[in-house]
């Protein structure tokens, strides 16, 4: 076994926390049950790692196996990477082809290898028709750097792919091209969504977040179910604005749905607008150039924070605005129809 491969496996295993070690090794499925049983996992980590490397050497682990282990580690620790979303489109008039995984893999690998002689490409298929691709980049003259790979998660039944953001950005166009051609699309576009949480991105992009199904016996009266107040509310407390509250609650529920929101951390909006004024000589209306501004919202969990704005009686039009935009999964839009933005603080 090559020294570099041994070093790579060693560093990968060292990254894995002890409580996940057996799970990940089982998922890797490279070392047999018997071999794993010979390892004493209660020792100090260095000794365990030494033993595992020894077993891998016996079995002659290749670079591919090491890369697979790296993919599995990343799958378990998805949130350590920041993911971008790319959307591919087919050209006009193209037919929908049946997706062939083998052909996709071959094509993808060939394109990358033709452009850059030194790349390591590994694949791992998971459920939901997703394939995880790991690419370690090299150049014409240097070997691939195994410690700064790029991961791509491609859902074959959809035109979306998620890519981990990496420091080697010069390879992004090539990667986009390879993905587009291999999956028989025409064009690839980077969407304005970025997150650590793949599940949230999936929920937003595949529109999985707002499914309110009518249940069979939803006979609980609206007031009890949706006010969200304490159940044992004192009957001596009377809310004067109960009609208004119910309305707000209903709107919130219609916009956001009952289920937990996808975890957005920041949303950025660019606004470019011209002003119109009835009075003559308004400063803003006389500008030649449109007014541009950038608004950025950030929060540990943005959509949940917005969802709780309305019941906290800080209702604002921005909430509806963002829901509209989120459902179109584009963060940048021409918002001139929403001027003026109405905030209450």
């Amino acid at each position: 076994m090559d020294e570099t491969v041994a070093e790579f496996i060693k560093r990968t295993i060292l990254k894995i926390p002890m409580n996940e070690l057996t799970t990940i090794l089982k998922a890797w499925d490279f070392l047999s049950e018997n071999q794993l049983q010979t390892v004493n996992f209660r020792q100090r980590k260095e000794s365990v790692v030494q033993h595992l490397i020894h077993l891998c050497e016996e079995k002659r682990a290749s670079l591919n196996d090491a890369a697979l282990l790296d993919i599995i580690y990343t799958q378990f620790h998805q949130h350590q990477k920041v993911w971008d979303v790319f959307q591919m489109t087919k050209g006009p008039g193209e037919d929908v082809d049946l997706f062939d995984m083998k052909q996709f893999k071959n094509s993808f690998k060939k394109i990358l290898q033709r452009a850059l002689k030194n790349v390591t490409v590994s694949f791992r298929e998971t459920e939901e028709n997703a394939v995880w691709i790991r690419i370690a980049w090299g150049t014409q003259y240097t070997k691939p750097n195994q410690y700064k790979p790029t991961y791509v998660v491609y859902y074959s039944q959809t035109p979306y792919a998620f890519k981990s953001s990496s420091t080697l950005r010069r390879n992004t166009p090539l990667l986009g091209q390879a993905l587009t051609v291999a999956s028989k699309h025409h064009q690839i576009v980077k969407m304005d969504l970025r997150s650590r949480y793949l599940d949230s991105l999936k929920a937003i992009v595949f529109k999985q977040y707002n499914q309110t199904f009518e249940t069979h016996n939803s006979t609980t009266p609206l007031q009890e179910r949706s006010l969200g107040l304490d159940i044992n509310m004192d009957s001596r407390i009377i809310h004067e604005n109960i009609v208004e509250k119910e309305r707000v609650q209903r709107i919130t529920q219609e916009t956001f749905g009952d289920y937990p929101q996808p975890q957005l951390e920041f949303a950025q909006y660019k606004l470019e607008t011209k002003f119109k004024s009835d009075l003559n000589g308004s400063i803003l209306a006389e500008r030649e150039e449109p007014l541009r501004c950038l608004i950025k919202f950030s929060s540990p969990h943005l959509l949940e924070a917005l969802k709780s704005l309305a019941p906290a009686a800080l209702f604002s039009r921005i909430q509806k605005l963002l829901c509209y935009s989120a459902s179109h999964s584009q963060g940048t839009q021409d918002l001139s129809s929403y001027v003026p933005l109405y905030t209450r603080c």
Partner: protein
Amino acid sequence: MSVLRPLDKLPSLNTATILLVGTEDALLQQLADSMLKEDCASELKVHLAKSLPLPSSVNRPRIDLIVFVVNLHSKYSLQNTEESLHHVDASFFLGKVCFLATGAGRESHCSIHRHTVVKLAHTYQSPLLYCDLEVEGFRATMAQRLVRMLQICAGHVPGVSALNLLSLLRSSEGPSLEDL
């Protein structure tokens, strides 16, 4: 009738009703809970409203005390209070209205100057109380005070009327208010 009048309804037996008006719903709810925990000979009723005028569809008893809760962190809260004040009849201000300013403890978050609220209370000749409603202990104390005030305003304390209480509270304010 969009204006609240103090004497347009007959009082119910042994009942005292307080109306809390403010934009911070959670705080009002907590204050209401604290008030209801107090021991009181009269039956208490707490009405919570975001602003005035009150919707006419609700059948409500006579209101004995109105407390306007102003959050010093939020200009909107002050604006809301000022607009609601227009819907209160002048005769209410004879001791049956009180201002409560919350959030003074966190000076860095305050966007309304203390003097603004002091001036507001002075204009309407009503007492101004300060309390950080987010702090459990202060809230409980304030709830006690409000319950006592409510009992007096409802006429359940023999010998003391709302107007008496008002002049009592006012005489303890310093002469510096005249400079405002």
